[in-house]
């Protein structure tokens, strides 16, 4: 009993810590003027979310989060920030307008609505993959099996999407012969 209590207590401790750090870092990310600082705070938010994924017993998604989001996507963003010269935008004063205020107000109302919607146990049919079963079989094995049986068509569609994205990125970023001085 005591052991169980201690484990739950530490789960709460980790949850409250990472959740508050994630929210704090994301607020800082939105308010920073310098895009590089924003990017670093966003990486911190992603790492905190990865810890939350671990608390939710999905280590596979936590690893993918660190690799793909905090690693690959953010590396790409930091690279583009480095390539573009944004000095002028850094110096321009922050404009506050009525439309922005109304937008923030609407978003806060939506957030309030979401708060009221999330209370209570989630409704819906319970599946067969209990945490014990998944940890016994292995998280990656279960995901791989589902990916190549039940989710084969979405998997193929996503692979086509990735190929299209690679081709699109190369075509867009390529310098046309006419533009060269």
């Amino acid at each position, binding site marked *: 009993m005591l052991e169980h209590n201690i484990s739950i207590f530490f789960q709460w401790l980790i949850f409250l810590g990472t959740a508050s750090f994630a929210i704090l870092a994301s607020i800082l990310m939105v308010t920073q003027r310098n895009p590089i600082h924003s990017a670093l705070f966003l990486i911190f938010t992603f790492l905190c979310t990865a810890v939350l994924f671990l608390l939710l017993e999905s280590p596979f998604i936590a690893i993918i989060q660190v690799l793909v989001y905090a690693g690959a996507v953010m590396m790409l963003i930091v690279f583009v920030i480095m390539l573009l010269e944004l000095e002028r935008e850094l110096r*321009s004063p922050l404009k506050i307008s009525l439309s922005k205020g109304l937008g923030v107000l609407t978003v806060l109302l939506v957030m309030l609505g979401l708060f009221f919607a999330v209370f209570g146990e989630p409704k819906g049919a319970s599946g067969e993959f209990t945490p014990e079963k998944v940890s016994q079989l292995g998280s990656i094995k279960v995901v791989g099996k589902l990916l190549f049986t039940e989710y084969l068509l979405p998997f193929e569609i996503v692979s086509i999407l990735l190929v299209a994205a690679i081709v699109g990125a190369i075509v867009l970023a390529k310098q046309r012969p006419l533009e060269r001085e």
Partner: protein
Amino acid sequence: MTIPSIPPAAYLIVGAVLFAIGAIGVLTRRNGIIVFMSIELMLNSVNLSLITFSHALNSMDGILFVFFVMTVSAAEAAVGLAIFVRLYRIKETINVDEINLMKW
């Protein structure tokens, strides 16, 4: 006395707050790259909600969904940043208020 385990609602509230912060970033910031990063934050908060439901309902479908959302966001990052690089070459700015080539 036993301490209650963390309810799904706690994770969902964190997801909702992160989503709202991302949406505020999209609406208020005018730097294209920061708008882009806010969209990534919104996608990530939806991932958190999906994992929470998948954990609460003992299902793997949420995890598979998160897998696909991550693929889509990686593709979006590649194409979106290529568009920013190209726009910067043409217009010398990525301020989203000044990018109005398609307006008439």
